[in-house]
């Protein structure tokens, strides 16, 4: 009987625990999740509360990260902004993994003409640089959180389609799939129940790094005015807002940028650690 410790994921986690960088990444991610969940409790002020007598104040005991041009507390806005960034990151990647994964799985499993048509469609999307595709989709959908997630998610679909297709191709001819076919399992059952669970390792690594990229892309879109509109406390939009005050009030740009960087750094640490932990070459 396999004990938890000896299972694949048990081994992976044991290896991950030995990787200091990955553990730092995991702590950052948990910290961010806690911040996002408890934002209403831990933020010292509501994110949209204006104090016109305290505009553009530098960091102080009352406002640790200072206030913006409307007298809003920057720390509170960054804390609430973590909700937006994590939502965008996880939902956008979840969307692209589901859609891209489905396309890749169908293409890889059926092969032939289906594969050819689906992958040529993906090639078309891949030939537009991801940021430019996200910008074009965001512009056509208009501003808003859901549209931002969709824009970022759509732009990443082809990556996951290719990744899943490659994984499916590598295991579709294995004996356990043949066994499932021979007992009369439906194609959908074979894909979702037998093939996809065995392709999870590369998808998880790519998705972890993908969340980081999605958060960066979303912040970039908001920075150029194609993401969320004020007063939503989005980190990229906050950076963009602080840009015109950079000469006299640089803290307005420094703190939101730091929040983005720490988040991305944590996700990259974790993604790299997961890749090392899942790399077959490093296994016993």
């Amino acid at each position, binding site marked *: 009987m396999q004990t938890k410790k000896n299972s694949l994921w048990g081994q992976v986690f044991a290896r991950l625990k030995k990787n200091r960088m990955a553990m730092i990444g995991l702590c950052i991610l948990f910290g961010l999740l806690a911040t996002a969940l408890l934002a209403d409790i831990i933020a010292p002020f509501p994110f949209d509360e204006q104090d016109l007598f305290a505009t553009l104040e530098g960091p102080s005991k009352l406002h640790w990260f200072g206030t913006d041009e409307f007298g809003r507390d920057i720390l509170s806005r960054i804390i609430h902004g973590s909700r937006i960034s994590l939502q965008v990151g996880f939902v956008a990647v979840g969307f692209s993994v589901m859609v891209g994964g489905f396309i890749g799985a169908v293409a890889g499993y059926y092969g032939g003409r289906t594969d050819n048509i689906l992958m040529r469609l993906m090639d078309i999307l891949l030939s*537009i*640089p*991801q940021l430019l595709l996200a*910008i074009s989709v965001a*512009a056509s959908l208009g501003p808003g959180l859901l549209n931002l997630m969709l824009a970022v998610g759509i732009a990443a679909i082809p990556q996951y389609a290719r990744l899943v297709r490659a994984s499916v191709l590598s295991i579709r001819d294995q004996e356990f799939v043949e066994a499932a076919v021979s007992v009369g399992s439906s194609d959908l059952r074979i894909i979702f129940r037998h093939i996809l669970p065995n392709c999870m390792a590369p998808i998880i690594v790519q998705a972890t790094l993908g969340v980081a990229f999605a958060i960066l892309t979303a912040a970039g879109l908001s920075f150029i005015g194609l993401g969320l509109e004020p007063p939503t406390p989005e980190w990229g939009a906050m950076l963009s807002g602080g840009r015109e005050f950079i000469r006299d009030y*640089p803290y307005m740009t420094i703190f939101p940028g730091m929040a*983005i960087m720490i988040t991305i750094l944590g996700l990259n640490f974790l993604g790299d650690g997961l890749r090392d932990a899942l790399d077959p070459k490093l296994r016993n």
Partner: protein
Amino acid sequence: MLGYILRRCAMLIPVILGVVFIVFALMYVTPGDPARMVLGEQAPQVDVDNLRAEMGLNDPFLLQFGRYVYKAVVHADIGRSYITKRPVWNELMTAFPVTLKLSALAMGIALLVGIPCGIVTAVRQYSIFDNIVTLFALIGISMPVFWLGLLLILLFTVKLGWLPPSGFDSVQAMIMPAVTLGLQSVAIITRMTRSSMLEVVRQDYIRTARSKGQKESVVIWKHALPNALVPVVTIAGIQFGILLGGAVLTEIIFSIPGLGRLMVSSIEMRDYPMVQGGVLFIALAFCLVNLGVDLLYAWLDPRIKSQYS
């Protein structure tokens, strides 16, 4: 090999047609009326309707798309800007050299810094230098381009007064944008060179070279590096394509009149022909760079070359 090149070029045709279709569809569903944008908010509705008819915006989607493709293929005409009234091609040709120069400079920095750093970190694996460079590479990958640009402006323009905050017309003005755009590629190329070198130096032929008494520098520079650079060339090529399409944020921060900035302002102004032409142009450049990378890869690696000859 020639057959492979021709086949790859032929495959570009449906891809580019697909790109045009996608961008056309995206612009078609984009809210906002280009005729209204051209004439202004105060213009009478009759004038707006007339202009819409004149621009062919009332025609069905497929007719508009077919007309665009026909003009582009038969007359090499990808339209005129709604705003400047100049041919889209001319506008693109004004902006593209700027983006190309910016991307080339960024790539130059990435190669000049990334490859040596990657080599040294691989040769001295787990040393303090390796740890520091690895950490910096991770920070480089994690740093938002637009934030880095603003921090550089804060330091070198606001605090030190050494460099201009915008423009791209002098060597001084090019430094900050090129570093901003190139930092992520520096990090990626450093990591790639390091892992590629580490893989190569463990191979048997390197052990043979060492056992023959070759000097370590000869082993690294003559035997290991040429093979380790093959995947680095691929990554560098792919990065160059990404830089061409991803220069938009850097161009906006430093007010550089490149392709990315032109695209964003065209999207804001609902200048459909400019957006369609621009995305088409960037996609074509991106595909050609990727094709070039594949060919270079085949040329560098005889095992791949033999598959096509």
